[in-house]
């Protein structure tokens, strides 16, 4: 299981800005190791953001997203105390879900 994500959700006016920092290798599959063999690709393919349990955004990522990916988005109408859940799935089938409270 991968390390937990760091999620920060802050109210700004009538919306909440959500910032997520995930912990993932994001290997592209283009690099080679010291013996010249290609390192297999390993990256997050799908990210879902949910607000109080209802999905509000789904992202599909390719291998060119940076290592330990950062993502920012804004949820309309989110208030302090609301729950924001972020989950990802990588191309090896690993999953991780973390939750944060809007402040």
């Amino acid at each position: 299981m991968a390390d937990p994500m760091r999620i920060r959700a802050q109210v700004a006016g009538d919306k909440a800005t959500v910032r997520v920092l995930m912990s993932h290798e994001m290997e592209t599959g283009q690099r080679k190791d010291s013996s010249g063999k290609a390192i297999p690709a390993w990256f997050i393919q799908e990210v879902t953001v949910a607000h109080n349990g209802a999905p509000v955004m789904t992202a599909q990522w390719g291998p060119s997203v940076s290592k330990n990916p950062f993502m920012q988005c804004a949820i309309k109408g989110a208030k302090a105390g609301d729950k924001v859940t972020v989950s990802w799935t990588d191309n090896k089938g690993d999953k991780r879900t973390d939750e944060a409270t809007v402040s």
Partner: protein
Amino acid sequence: MQTRREMLAHSATVVGLLGAAGMLPAAAQAAWNEAAFSAKTLADVVKAMGGGAPAESKDVTVTGPDIAENGAVVPVGASSSAAGVKRLMLLVEKNPNALAASFDLTDKVEANVTTRVKMGQSSNVYAVAMMGDGKVMYAVKEIKVTLGGCGG
């Protein structure tokens, strides 16, 4: 003797069973658009995503630095002021596969996302907005990279 057609049908059944049993990770990620992520150009990506002909528009903005010192971590963002954006995509023209990320939006989120991407070399970065009616708009910005992010 098995015909090719029968064999294909059989393997499809087996794959289906495996998927149902949760043994194939791919089954959980059926939504991942492999065609779009292996496309090389803006036009091909948009086609794979099912959009119409892309047109440059002022309603879409791409944010990012003019010069990125480290190509492994380039902060880029896509946003659109138009109403009814269904999907925002970020593309790096000179990466091996152009599409970096695609965000499927609902009306609950703003059409404004930011992430960080890897860039192998200085390149044009596109922000593409797909509307509900299939219309595709984009904005482009050149980002110069001093140190490529795909080496090693």
